[in-house]
């Protein structure tokens, strides 16, 4: 009976210390995970914002107004007449100068 009491006196603090240490480790891990999750969320948000920004830039650059301006600068002119090419079942209508 006395031995059990001694064992308990030694073991219980050890278990308590182990639990505290494991709690520290777990908490630390959770904090690290939480921090990286937050960082990932932030990165996702930033990436989404850049995607949206790129989409807007692409949309602006490929708009009719932008294309017409660029075409004019490069010397393209409005075609005056069209020619249709027919080869058996394949037919294509083309704008030509």
């Amino acid at each position, binding site marked *: 009976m006395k031995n059990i009491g001694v064992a308990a006196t030694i073991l219980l603090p050890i278990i308590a210390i182990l639990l505290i240490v494991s709690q520290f480790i777990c908490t630390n891990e959770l904090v690290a995970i939480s921090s990286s999750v937050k960082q990932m969320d932030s990165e996702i948000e930033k990436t989404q914002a850049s995607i949206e920004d790129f*989409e807007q830039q692409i*949309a602006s650059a490929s708009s009719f107004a932008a294309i017409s301006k660029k075409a004019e600068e490069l010397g393209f002119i409005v075609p005056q007449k069209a020619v249709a090419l027919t080869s058996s079942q394949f037919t294509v*209508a083309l704008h030509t100068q």
Partner: protein
Amino acid sequence: MSRIWVIFSFFLLFFAAIIVRLFYWHIWESSKLRDAAAGQHLIRFSIPAKRGNIYSSDGYPLVLSKEVSLVYANPREIENMYEASGRLATLLNVDSASISALLSLPDRVWVPLKHKVEKETVDAIKETGIKGIGFEKESKRYYPEGSMSAHLLGFVGADENGFDKGYFGIEGWYNRELSGKDGFLAAEKDAHGTPILIGETLRVEPENGRTLTLYVDRTIQGIVEKKLSQGIEKYGAKEGAIVVMDPKTGGIISMASYPSYDPSIYTEFEKSLYKNPVVAGSYEPGSTFKSLIMAAGINEGVIKPDTIIDESGQVQIGEYSIKTWNDQYHGKISMTDVLKYSSNVGMVFVERALGEDKLLKAIKDYGFGKPTGVDLEDESSPSLRKDSEWYEIDYATASFGQGIASTPLQLVRAVSAIANGGQLLEPHVVKSITDDKGKVYKTTPKKIRTVLSEKAAKQVTEMMVAAVDYGEAKWAKPKGYRIAGKTGTAQIPVAGHYDAKKTIASFVGFAPADNPKFVMLVMLVEPQSSQWGSETAAPLFFSVAKDILLYLGIPPS
């Protein structure tokens, strides 16, 4: 014994009262009390949903949502009020006095300074390092194509509570789908209203608005808008509109009208410009209506394309004389010639052959007098007069499109029935809706009713092809293509009579006639170079049609 009953009754009533009171609190007033309690210990932040984008059928963005910011201030934290006001006013392009007034409001911890501020301005404000200035995310509509399709798209303004709301066009009709559902973050707060760092929080993510893909083809829309603008200038018209529809699906491929507005700065334009004349405008279709009545006559079997009439002079109806547009008469002519010469006298013959009841039924069957059901907010339909108010002269004039009002879209939809073999379809602008999770909901063509037999539709198509090939506007037709069409010149009713000098010139048709890819109406209001549709709207129609046919890769037959 009686005392026991008294005490028993007392306890019974007492507990009943408690139960009633508990029922009142827990059931009857529960939501109100829950909200009140939440208001006392929770602070709630709204997480705005992103408004959905709008794309053309070829995948180009017509409307995007751009991230902007609400700039606000906490006046208590601002150190130098006058200097801050001056710098903020310059950056935000706002009057300095109004910023000072806002920052000087007593006991205010949060004052909004300006909504929808661009990222560049926000960065510039951050660089100044002024304390007490904060930013909240907002979204703003961005139009890569500028004012293209303005009437079709509508715009986003604010509702009575200052929240974004779509008005007119697609933005108005699909406001709920585009808006999505705002999320929120609820956190516990202390007695001072400050969020508790380790308190409980509840985060509900926003449900972003749905993405819309239209039937509108960006290239065709570009062609139509450019040609319309050139046509209005060339013919000196006051207003104009073009609508292009796919006769097989009812999809609106293009819709443009002039004058228009820029949806990104809609407040700078007159409110009268916001309504789309193609769906909200009312006009007399004039001779473009003849092909519809002719089709009804052929469908009923009362006439054939080769039925001969004697067009020898004016037709007298009571006190009114019906004459041809140029007061010239061609003697014995066929029904095909009636369309070719656009003969009002010939149309009175068709009306009489058809009979009043069948004529009225045909007009109603084509969908006139009722909205088409197109998914645009501003649609309205001119109503038909009551059946009892139709007189002999009304039936006669209706046969050649006068004394009857229509929207341009109603006319295009009715002519589509000739093009597609007799089916009246519900027009649609939106082709598909994609939700936040990527699920796609497609719009299926909706048939309203069969208005013509396939045979009648084919016969009228041939008559319309002849009207183009041998009619007044034959010179403008692109060579080698079979195009079915009809010109129209409607006088504008002013104060109970028609003003001969003010006309609405129009042309409606479809191409290629044998397998139509599009039905198109061109309308010019009060053209100055010529009042006739054959000299203004028809050449413009053919010019647009030629470009569309080339774009679609359709060669001459």
